[in-house]
């Protein structure tokens, strides 16, 4: 007695596959429907290019937060990419295989630490250190950048390691036979061949950095100002939504959805740029 035939299973799987897609479109439609009318209502210029955010007084300018998000993400890249890249080269090229087997899972474990924990360490340890030894209020772009830089490290590391490992051994042998040293081989043969994978890793990290909310709320200070130095505190787009979501009603709520629209656009542009750059890279190699 067969309850489900071949065909019904197939149909079921199709429905499931499309339900994921439907969810994506529903989210997209919902955010756009709630956010776009607000943006046109208040004026694109007033919304995007003003940094006066006082929802209670009817002022909704998110320029400071766009700048804040970009600064914090840039900071995370400055902290995370050199560490991640150097780490990946060392781990993939210099470390014996048995040690890799211990270290790689440990790195992946780092990715599993909840962001609240990172934020907590940032508030308790990093922010006081910055305040006491460098200056400013401590809760700042710098603190957020360092915390985010560490948070995106596992992503960059593990994808970079995989793509360096995937470079055919013959490339290295070829370089060695031409008389290249170990380091010359790495930066002239291995890295260019692994480039697209490494860039994909960096962009995935970038996505995580710009979308991260909890840790950033905890360490960035959330002041709505155009930052003048890395020691100033900033509010990111994600933090703005999460901070005020619980209370927002009416126009204020729509303004937060509109903030979501901007965030969505930034992430879409980033993803698109990433796809294109990877495609170009592959063509050259």
């Amino acid at each position, binding site marked *: *007695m*067969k*309850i*489900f*035939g071949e065909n019904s299973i197939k149909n079921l799987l199709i429905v499931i596959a499309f339900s994921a897609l439907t969810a994506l479109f529903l989210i997209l439609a919902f955010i756009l429907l709630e956010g776009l009318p607000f943006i046109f209502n208040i004026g694109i210029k007033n919304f995007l290019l003003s940094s006066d*955010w*006082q*929802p*209670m007084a009817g002022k909704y300018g998110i320029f400071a937060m766009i700048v804040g998000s970009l600064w914090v993400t840039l900071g995370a890249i400055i902290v995370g990419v050199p560490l991640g890249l150097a780490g990946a080269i060392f781990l993939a090229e210099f470390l014996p295989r048995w040690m890799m087997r211990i270290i790689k899972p440990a790195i992946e474990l780092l990715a599993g630490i909840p962001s609240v924990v990172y934020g907590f360490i940032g*508030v*308790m340890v990093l*922010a*006081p250190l910055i*305040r006491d030894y460098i200056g400013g*209020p*401590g*809760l700042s772009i710098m603190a957020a950048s360092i915390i985010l830089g560490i948070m995106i490290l596992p992503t960059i590391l593990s994808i970079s390691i995989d793509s360096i490992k995937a470079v055919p051994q013959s490339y290295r042998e070829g370089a060695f036979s031409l008389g290249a040293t170990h380091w010359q081989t790495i930066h002239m043969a291995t890295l260019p061949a692994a480039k697209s994978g490494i860039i994909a890793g960096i962009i995935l990290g970038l996505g995580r950095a710009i979308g991260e909310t909890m840790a950033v*709320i*905890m360490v960035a*200070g*959330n*002041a*709505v*100002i155009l930052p003048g130095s890395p020691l*100033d*505190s900033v*509010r990111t787009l994600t933090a703005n939504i*999460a*901070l*005020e979501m*619980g*209370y*927002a*009603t009416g126009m*204020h709520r729509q303004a937060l959805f509109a903030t979501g629209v901007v965030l969505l656009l930034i992430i879409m542009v980033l993803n698109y740029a990433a796809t294109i750059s990877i495609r170009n890279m592959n063509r050259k190699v």
Partner: protein
Amino acid sequence: MKLKIVIKVIIFAIIAGFSLQACGKNKLSITVAGSTAFQPFAEKLAGLYMAEKPNTHITIQGGGSAVGIQSVLSGAANIGMADLVQLPPEAKDLNSYIVARDGIVMIVNPKNSVKNLEVSQIRDIYNGKIKNWKELGGNDHKINVVSREAGSGTRSSYEAIIQNITLVKEAIIQDSNGTVRETVANDANAIGYISHGIINDKIKALTINGVSCTTEEIVNKKYMLVRPIFLLTKGAPQDRVKAFIDYVLSKNGQDIIKANGLIPAI
């Protein structure tokens, strides 16, 4: 064959669904939503009330004062909790009961030598006119102003009482009473404001115009940073909802509120 089984499963699911709903209906349920400041007290009161009347089931939800008002208006909750000095215009048709009062305390780091602030000084600090502790008799350090997010009940009450505050843009924003307290506890030059109920010894409470925030001073109406906590209902409360509000306002209920650190309404 296949169809039969599917139909059986569907019928079973429907019956199960109905019977579950029926179970829920045997109990009188009340949903209370809103202010996170009053939430722990509401939970405590609800627990004791349910122990007295086992056929009532009370659900307490947080979400903040605005959520409390919204969910009463929409009917999602029977009772809303709000901790605002002035109820917003959309709440003017709701029935409101003041069930408790809560003091707001100005706090600084224990290392700070400043002990008292005048209201005008507080206003100038939060407007960004006073920028250095030196101007207030403290050390020569920049003041790190800590405030709450727009829409917070504590913040709107605070700004409504102090009046004429346009928050200085450099102010650090924290999203709960607890995180404001931690920020001030970690930063020797910070100033913040939190609910009276959660003061601890990692921070120092300031006196305002020479008056400290104690139950006595609030009852005598000498301490000024006090906000009422409202329970809101849509229309006059009926049987089970009324019974619970009466319980909160009864001497018994008020004693519980007092014993847990809030100031009773009466």
